[in-house]
């Protein structure tokens, strides 16, 4: 199992990049929660989550990822089962039923399904992709595989995560190749779904979109987050207000600043220059992920890498977009940055898979 080649080809670049991002995230959390008092400070908890996550990632590196191809369908079925389970017996908080209470921690099946979909689609695409590209009718199987969990997630309701799953799947699909006509058709269907979706959305979700377009209309209610975030980000200026000196954060005007809006805290305190560096490192992570995909020893590994990279990419883009006012607030965390065990673990599972593919690129 511990082939010397594995150790030689261990992907230090990836690990260090991830640790750097997570480290900056922890420092940022320290500032974001500086005015809070609790038995264990938030940033300390995040350190523990990170440590746990790294353990998980390293554990995932221990076995040959090709074994996962066998278990792709199993993992999908288990995850889908958990999604059904959570709808019937899950914990309901604030109108959404997303978690299963396992006592010492809460399991969020919608996170698990992200990984399961990546595994499953990697298996499907690696086995059936051809240079001709997929025709529309050939997609019925993956479509159904995708539809089932997405519908369940929407029922929770969790629009943000549902969107993430769809984007990840589409990214992988696009990479696998589509016939031109099919691509046009899919775009068209996408448009129709968006329109139909508008009518299917819950009131509060529609309200969110309206608020996004005009946050000043409801500064006390739904517009509050967006307005505060923009102010925080903008008042960072070029050089930032300085560590622990962001007034919007320290005086608690920025809500959710340890989770969804953690980046706003960073932007306020480190300014454009800090954001530039951070975004650069995130972009580096994405491009490196694609590089791992390109070097992968087989198609399955390649698609795994694409899927994981897509997952990280879309989370970054949607969260950042939300924070700077380009997208409506949908509650998607920034990987490695937002506080949260669930997000950290899911991301690190992805990173683990990526490292796994990367270090076995010469194995066969």
């Amino acid at each position, binding site marked *: 199992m511990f082939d010397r080649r594995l150790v030689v080809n261990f992907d230090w670049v990836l690990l260090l990049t991830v640790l750097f991002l997570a480290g900056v995230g922890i420092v940022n959390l320290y500032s974001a929660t500086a005015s809070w008092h609790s038995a264990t400070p938030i940033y300390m908890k995040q350190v523990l989550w990170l440590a746990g996550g790294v353990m998980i990632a390293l554990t995932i590196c221990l076995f040959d990822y090709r074994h996962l191809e066998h278990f792709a369908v199993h993992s999908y079925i288990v995850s889908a089962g958990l999604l059904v389970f959570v709808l019937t017996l899950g914990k309901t908080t604030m109108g959404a039923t997303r978690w299963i209470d396992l006592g010492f921690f809460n399991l969020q099946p919608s996170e698990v399904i992200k990984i399961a979909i990546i595994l499953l689609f990697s298996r499907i695409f690696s086995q059936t992709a051809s240079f001709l590209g997929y025709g529309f009718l050939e997609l019925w199987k993956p479509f159904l595989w995708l539809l089932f969990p997405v519908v369940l997630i929407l029922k929770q309701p969790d629009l943000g995560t549902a969107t993430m799953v769809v984007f990840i799947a589409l990214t992988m699909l696009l990479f696998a190749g589509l016939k031109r006509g099919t691509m046009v058709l899919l775009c068209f269907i996408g448009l129709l779904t968006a329109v139909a979706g508008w009518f299917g959305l819950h009131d509060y979700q529609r309200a969110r979109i309206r608020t996004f377009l005009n946050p000043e209309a409801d500064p006390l209610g739904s517009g509050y987050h967006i307005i505060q975030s923009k102010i925080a980000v903008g008042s960072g200026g070029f050089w930032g207000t300085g560590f622990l000196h962001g007034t919007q954060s320290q005086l608690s005007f920025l809500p959710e600043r340890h989770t969804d809006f953690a980046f706003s805290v960073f932007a306020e305190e480190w300014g454009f220059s800090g954001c530039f560096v951070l975004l650069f490192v995130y972009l580096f992570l994405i491009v490196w992920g694609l590089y791992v995909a390109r070097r992968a020893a087989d198609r*399955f590994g390649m698609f795994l890498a694409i899927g994981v990279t897509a997952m990280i990419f879309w989370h970054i883009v949607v969260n950042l977009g939300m924070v700077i006012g380009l997208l409506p607030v949908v509650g998607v965390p920034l990987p490695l940055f937002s506080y949260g065990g669930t997000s950290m673990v899911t991301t690190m599972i992805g990173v683990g898979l990526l490292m796994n593919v990367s270090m076995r690129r010469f194995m066969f």
Partner: protein
Amino acid sequence: MGLDVKWIELPAVQRRFLFYSAAATLVFMLLLLRLWYLQVIHYEELQERSVRNRTRVLSLEAPRGPIYDRHGTLLVDNRPSFQISVMRQEVENRSLLFQNLSDLLEIETQELENRWKAGQGFPIYRPVPLATDVSWDAMEKVQEHGVDLPGILTEVRPIRDYLDQGSTAHLIGYLGEITEDELARKNFAQYRAGDFIGKTALERNYEDYLRGHKGKRLVEVDVQGKLLRQLQVESSRPGNKIFLTLDRELQQVTDEAFGDQSGAAVAMNVHTGEILAIASRPTFNPALFAKGIGSKEWRELAHDKRHPLQNKVIAGQYPPGSTFKMVVALAALRDGIATQKRIIDCKGDFEVGGSRYRCWKKDGHGPTDLKKALRESCDVWFYQVGLELGIDKLSQAAKEFGLGAIVGYPLPGERAGVIPSQEWKRKNYNKPWYAGETVIASIGQGFVLATPMQLAVMTAALANNGKVLKPQVIQKIEDWDGNVLLESEPEVVRQIDYDPKAWKAVRDGLIAVVNEPRGTGHAARLDHITVAGKTGTSQVVRRKSDEEEEEEKAGEVPYRFRPHALFVAYAPAENPEIAVAVVVEHGQSGGRAAGPVAKKIIERYMELKTP
């Protein structure tokens, strides 16, 4: 699976990597562009906004719903009060601040420290109250010396105002600060620390109706915390209006009639069960609790031997004494044991199983029929009849009238009283029932216990031909637009079945009690209307022997051993409308102490009726 070199080396596929990388870079550049837009282009504007923009969402307290009597007379309202609070993050030198404040307001610095600590759980931007309900002068002083008191602000808060100063304290209840345990509960999700909620009785059970809807103020303050401008206001909505069935005039009369005595009184509408007056004495002033009661005052109230905090109307369990005789009479009539005409010779005592039981009239009443037995409250007549009836039949009849179980008073705290039976004795004492116990139960003593509320319901049932009614305290609840949210309807718990002749016989007896010369209840007699009623004198301790009684006659019986005085009544006898039950603790004579209270209530009731 496996190596598919051909596909992956296709230039088309290789291009995709490049394409994806380029696309990702493009997206990130868009994000950076947007960041540039916010952080460089609009920097000044947003920076200014952040400095000026210490927006605070301040909660606007909603006035609690007012409580009225049935005619719309205000009983409980809110009044504005001044509260001195502190914005914690603006305090740099706390000891100096508290010193200054202490001098101005004449409050101990320790007290201020305690309040500061109590507000630890508040979010940082929420002011912590340091002094509540301060005087106008104090408020002015604080305003004048604003410069010396950085971080201190004056808030205007509504505070509960009890216009009747405690007359209805047991019915309405009082408020208190919400506790941590309560905050954790689901139904208190809308509340924050420092809120006052109903803790007892009406204020508590109807909290949802009475609590208004908090408003919000979005305000802009500058670096020094001064209000720059108000951005938006969502006004608060006051709580709903509750109209009680109570009649304030009758309630006032009850207060006057009681004077300093302890006890309980309740007046009820005979057909609907609506409670027109309800008084438990001594009472307390709920205003003590409205701004947070001190522990010393609380202890005093809790340890007062006359139990001012207890609602004696529903929770005071007394032996009903002779007021119970109406049930015995009815049961005997139904069972055929007695008719109206049955004569029993009362010689002053009665022997059963080797024990002697005496009539209150030492020498006896002589030959006595039902009417005389009720009128003059002859114990021996009832001993005899009760014994023949047997405790179980008696028990059943009493329970039909609602005794021995809670009658359904809509607010918490009701006690059930006790109606013994053979089974009851076995269950509770593991002993058989003795005939002597039936005897004393027949005059409402021994194990028998009832609350004044039960006695009122019982009396009303006698007056309205057997409808046992559920007591109603709320007439209706309205919102401020005039919409009726709740309206009470009379509820008949049970319909008791007796022959009309039986009802009449007992009623005639009760009319005689008040209106005929030898009636024990002549103190309640009124000129213009016929009052029907029954006196009761219930022993607090067992009847003493002759010797002990002689001894005590020499000196006064200590207060706590004096018997309770009871009186139940309804009027007008021909067409009853109102039923009353009065207990004067340790009043000694039902007729002399409790009768006049009932009389005054009924009198006033009739006065109010004539326009």
